[in-house]
Each structure stands twice: as C-alpha cells, then as structure tokens.
C-alpha cells in the first residue's frame, strides 16, 4: 500500500506584509519513483499555487534546487521519497538571501564570487582565428574538467561552519574555482596572485576543516583534497614571501 507522506515546509513571503515565517504541512500519497520535484510541483498545482521553489533542469545538472531536506543540504530533484521517512521537513538553504519559501538567491552570491576570485583565464595572448588551437595533454584537460564540474548549487556553502560565521568566506565552491584556474596552463597568474585572493581568512585560511562541504556535495567533487592542496600551496607561498623579506 502506498505511504501517506507528510511534508513540513518553511513558508514566508517577504513581499507580503501579512506573511510571517512559519512551517506548513502538506500530505501527499506516495507514487512510484517519486522525487521531491514531483512532490513540490504537485503541492503547488493541487494544494497551494503560491508555494515558491526553484527547479530548472530537474536532472541534477544545473544546481537550481538546493534545499535542506531533513537537515541536510541536497538537490531536491534527485531526492527520492523512497529513501525518506514518512515525515519530511524542507527548509531553504541558509547563508543565501531568501526570496520566498524554499527559494533563495544563489545568483547574486556567485556573481560576486566571480569578481572576487576573477573567475576567468588571465592571459596576455590574443586569439588568432587563423591559427590551430594550442595543444594540451588530455590528462590536463580531464583534471581541469574534474574541478569544473561544480554546479554552484550552494549546498557546500550552506553546510559550511565558516560561511555561517563570515559572510565574506569564499566557501568550498569559491576555493575550488581558484584551484581550477591554478592548474590550468592557459592562466598566467602566479601563485603570488592567487595568494592575494585566497591567502587570508576570507579564503583558504578561514576553512576550519569541518568538511561538511565534501559530505553534502551532490556532484561528489574532491573538495577535501582541493582544500588540503590549496592550504599547502598557499602555506608554502606565505613562507616563501616571509623569507624573501
């Protein structure tokens, strides 16, 4: 027999003066292969059309639907009800500005990050449309892609102890972005340049090593290794700078 599922959902519409933050419950009968994507759309279409939440690709690729599911930041689209108890609590991701109900503003947060870490290839070379492409070993391309897989869902930031304390902390997603350019031979920035960005408490030295980021990353990014690598690299850069003086 199909289970009856109870969803306790955070509700608040900051644009409505009469709205106050509260929890609201909805009950749905479970169907085969049910995901939170199906659940939330059914609640909106059948029970409360004002319910706000974000989905886009609904295939675990775009990172839109990060939310806290029974205490854990997750992508809602690939969360199956089959793996959850009868009662499920959904909250918006912390750290990010609330738009309403389960919807948060990750866009502004990440756009600011691009400027902070200058999230682009720094090169003096001009593109020559007539020339063959510059060669690159396939292994190098694969290593870059491995770090380029981040979908900026914000789960790692929402689960991060430091990010909850320091609004300017770059989080695992931001630090990983720096790591991506650091190993890209096309980027001409030096270790000193990267040190200027992340060699501080806003960057790699702000990380307390709690590593919830690694636990919750829906793309299984190697965040623990990345943070360790950057801490070591920036530590050495700091020492070099110290002895040069």
């Amino acid at each position, binding site marked *: 027999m199909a289970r009856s599922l109870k969803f306790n959902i955070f509700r608040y519409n900051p644009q409505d003066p009469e709205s106050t933050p509260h929890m609201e419950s909805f009950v749905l009968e479970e169907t085969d*292969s049910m995901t939170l994507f199906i659940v939330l759309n059914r609640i909106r279409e059948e029970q409360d*059309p004002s319910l706000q939440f974000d989905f886009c690709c609904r295939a675990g*690729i775009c990172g839109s639907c990060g939310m806290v599911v029974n205490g854990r930041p997750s992508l809602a689209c690939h969360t199956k009800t089959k793996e959850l108890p009868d009662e499920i609590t959904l909250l918006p991701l912390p750290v990010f500005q609330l738009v309403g109900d389960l919807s948060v503003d990750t866009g502004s947060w990440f756009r600011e990050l691009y400027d902070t870490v*200058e999230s682009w290839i720094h090169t003096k070379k001009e593109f020559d449309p007539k020339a063959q492409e510059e060669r690159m070993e396939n292994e190098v391309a694969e290593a870059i892609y491995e770090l380029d897989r981040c979908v900026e869902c914000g789960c790692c930031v929402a689960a991060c102890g430091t990010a909850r304390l320091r609004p300017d902390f770059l989080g695992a997603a931001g630090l990983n972005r720096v790591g991506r350019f650091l190993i890209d031979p096309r980027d001409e920035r030096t270790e000193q340049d990267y040190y200027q960005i992340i060699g501080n408490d806003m960057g790699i030295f702000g990380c307390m090593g709690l590593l919830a980021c690694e636990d919750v990353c829906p793309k299984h990014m190697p965040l623990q290794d990345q943070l360790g690598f950057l801490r070591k690299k920036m530590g050495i850069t700091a020492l070099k700078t110290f002895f040069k003086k």
Partner: protein
Amino acid sequence: MQTIYTDVLVIGAGLAGERAAIEAAQAGFSAICLSLVPARRSHSSAAMGGMQAALGNCAKGEGDCPDVHFSDTVKGSDWGCDQEVARLFADQAPIEMRQLAHWGVPWNRVVPGKDTYFKGGKIFDKEEKEENRGLITARDFGGTAKWRTCYVSDGTGHSVLFTVDNVCAQLGVEVHDKTEAVALIQDGQTCFGAVARCLRTGELRVYLAKATTIATGGFGRIYPGTTNAVICDGGGHITALNTGVVPMGNMEAVQFHPTGIVPTEILVTEGCRGDGGTLLDVNEERFMNIYEPEKQELASRDVVSRWMTHHIRLGKGVKSPYGDHLWLDIRHLGEKHITGKLREVYEICTSFLGVDPIHQLIPVRPTQHYSMGGVRTNKDGHAYGLKGLFSVGEAACWDMHGFNRLGGNSLAETVVAGGIVGKKIAEFLQGAEVTFNSGVIDAEVKKQQERIQNIISCKAGTENVYKVRTAMQDALFKGANIFRTDAGLTECVNTLQETLARARKVGLKSNGKGVNPELSAALKIEGQVKMALMLSYGALKRTESRGSHNREDFTARNDRDWLTRTLAYWKSEKDDLPTLDYEAATNIFHIPPGDRGYGKSEIIKADDVKTEDKG
C-alpha cells in the same frame, strides 16, 4: 518605475545569448542579459554530448571539412534548412571551438596510439596519430559522415557555459537573473526594449535598448513530456508573437527523442542503443527487429520514435501512473560497461528512478526534445518585422536545422550563431541612434500592469492556470505528436481554440503577491496556447512528411509544393487562429533536394531547382 538603459538587451543568458552579448561588449557596447535563473543554470548546461565542428583532428575524423559538415546538416534537415545559413555555420564552427579553447574550455584532446571503439555492439580498432597529440578530439554522433563532435567528457554544455559566463563576468556583461521579460516595447516598426518582471520582488521594470535579442531557448514545456528544463516554456517567443508583426518560422518542426525516462522525462543517451541496448514492450519482447529488420534499435531518432509510438498505440506499452511506456534493456552489457562507458546513464537511473540498470529495465518513451522552429530571422539574426529585434539559438528559426537537426549541431549553433549574430548586432549599433517615445513605453507598462491586476482580481474569470496548461499539453500530445493526421490535427486545433478561450479567463487562486509562481504561469498561458496553435495549425496545413513532421495521410516529402518555410503570425490579439504565410526554404541551393541516405525515401520531386556551386 525603475528604467534601465543598455545598448544591447539580451533576453536569456544561455550560451547563444551570452555569446552574442560578448561580441557586443568587445565592440565597446554595454550589454545586459535577462535570465529566469542564474546564467549558469540555463538549459545549455544540460547538453552533455558535444558540439559538431569539422576540425578533423581525430583518426575517425580524418578528411573532414566544413563541406562535409554542411552536407550532413542539409541532409539532416531533409532539405528544409536555409543552405546559406548552414554554410555560414559549418565554416565558422571550427574557429569557434578554438576560440572557446582560448577562453578556457577544457576540450578533450587527441591521445596518440592504438585504441578500440564499439559500433553496433561490435568492437573495432583505431589508431590516433602522434602528430595530432593534444589537439581537440571528437566523438561519433548520428547522421554524420565523420567523427566530428567536440566534447568535454559528459558535460560539454556545462563546461562551455561556465567558460562563456566567465568571459561575460570579465567583460562586464551584466546578467540580471531572476528577471522575466513579459513584453517587448515596440511601435510596430522598431523594438525599443522590454518590460520585465523581477522574480525577487515581483515588481515590473523597464529595459530600454537600441538592440533587443531573444535567446530564450526552446519551448518544449508546451508538451506534457519533454527533456527540456522547466524554464523552456516559450516566454521569449511569446513576447515576439504578441507584437503581431514578428512571425514564427516552422513551428510544426519538433524533434522527439526515443529515450526519455519515465517519469521526469530526463534524457538517456543514444549510446545505450549504440552499444547494444534493446527496446522491449510490455511482454519484455523486442519489436524494433520486426519493424526495422536491418537497422533495428539503431535506426535514426525519428524512425525509432515513430515505431515506439506505433507499438504503444497497439496496446503493447507498459502501464504506469505516469502513462504508458516501453523498456530500455542494457542489462546484458554488464556492470563494467554500464558503470564505465555509460556512467551517466547509470547515475540518472539510480538517482532519479531508483532503478539499477545492471539488473533492472529502464522505463522510456519518445519525448519532445528540440524545437527547430522559433522567431524567424534573416541570416544576420535580425528578426522579421521589427527593426532592432534579433534572435539567436534554439529560440530562433535562423534556420540551419530545417525539419530535423543533427545531434551535436544544436549546442554548436548556440556559440557559432551567437558569435555571428553578435557581430551583426555590433554592426547594427555602429552609428545607430534610437529615439525613445515615452508614450510607447508608458502604454506598454500600463498594459502589463492592467493585465497583472486583472489576472489577480479574476476579472475575466477563475479558470485554473494549471488545468488550462494541462489541457493545452494534452491536446498537443494527442494531435501534434510523432504521427500526425488531418483528423488528429483538426481535433487538436479545435481543442486548442477552446483552450485559448479558457486561457483568456484565467484568474488566480492565490493572492498574487511578490514572486507568485501562479502569476508567472498565468502571465504566459495565453501566449503558450497561441504557440501551440501555430504549431498544430502549421502542421495541419503542411500536407507532406518532411524530417520530424510525419503525416500519415501524406507520407511523401513533397519538394514540388512544400520546399517552404511556414511563417506564422498572430496578427490581432483577438484572433483565434494564426495567419500562415510561406517563403522558400532556401534561396540558394548548394545541394539540390535528394535522398538522405537513411530512413524511407518517398519523394515528390520539384522540377526547377537550380543549384549554385560555392567558390
């Protein structure tokens, strides 16, 4: 009312829109992209396979060149494309791939040495040359003579979108995300920008621009099942068709992919069948080997989708709470192969279905996948009907795909066309001065404010937007699907006309305050039904079968009467049907209409098609 001025306004921040904005920014113009979602969540990110470009670096791509790519594209389009545009595209694609490499895309590269690959379930050898070490490599895709699809693992769209958005950040191209354009500001001759709704506050905003570009992707969401993201709802098209002067091209040309999973309609790759996977029915028996003894499961997308639908119609589908489906069986390929070369499929099945494809069958059915049609533009990307309005990418009917597009050509089109059209926009802006008429702007704002107020206060009625939407989707699914007939399409058009009347009476159940999702849906439902009518009415009138448009009552491709592109206008707001017009599919023939070399060929020949050789 907040009013923002920019040289170029791009509606949509996927690959096509951002790539065009980059060209404008590099030419010294200011550019703002509006997007429903943060730019990197745009649906371009979901394209996994790759981009076709005739670089010819890998062993199986040797001898490739833009001519061969052009020829594959024209055949793929079933001679429905504009050949001049397809030529522009094929010539520019290799340069664009190198440009992307320069910007930071980690393309997979040639690894010299001996290697093996699978084809039709069998294993073959190949050897990559030392001299090509480290150049951009390519993989095999359907309908191509060579291995031509450049890729970044199984995340090409994601990786290219991140790179292009990085360049936007670098150049100062602004992205106003969570912002939805609801209407163009125009006077019937010139486009001056758009009225947009902020999806953080629900407030309206005015964007004024010398050039406005619609780059909002496909409109798969007007069907009940689609591989498209939820944002691919035709919002951009609606702003164009509501002007009454901008036509939609070939709306009836819709591609269906054989293996969308059930439920959620996420795509699983053609590679499953390429590597030997089979399709099974309710009795767990194969059927493609009966319908297509030669190619079996590996016939082309349109052919397999047609037979699957036929089989379900015979009652051989598997019943489920999400509708009838068939099975995809890859169990016999074994654990190593499934968790290795088909890792992504394995992850989709386990994550979304809770199905382990090593031991269980995957529920699939043909699913709406791509919109060949869209805002009709000339080869510069300038929309018909309005000066200063452009369109690019899947949103546009530029028209390099005609009636069927090849895999790997859509993702490539986003950046190649983005670059070409972006340059043309920059040319258009050189020395262009626009006089903004405050009367036109205020009238449009007032109109949108009233529309919103009327929907919230249920002035025209209390129809439920989700029920109306379901009625529209069901009508299209029933009548304008893979198989089309006069009777089915007539019924579809009639049903949609009734649905249009209901759409005009939609009123909210909720209070409509702030970023109300019911209001967002209600604001576009009437436009969506109009698009559905353009699609189904165009399909009804096109009495032939070409590419993805299959008429059971007109099975031949008719080059004598239908070597044309449909142009659908919604001339007056009060109309209940679109006005159809036609133009030649292409003004220049480099390749005269002929046999595609795959699929059944039944052709009514044209007598007077002149060809022109290039160069």
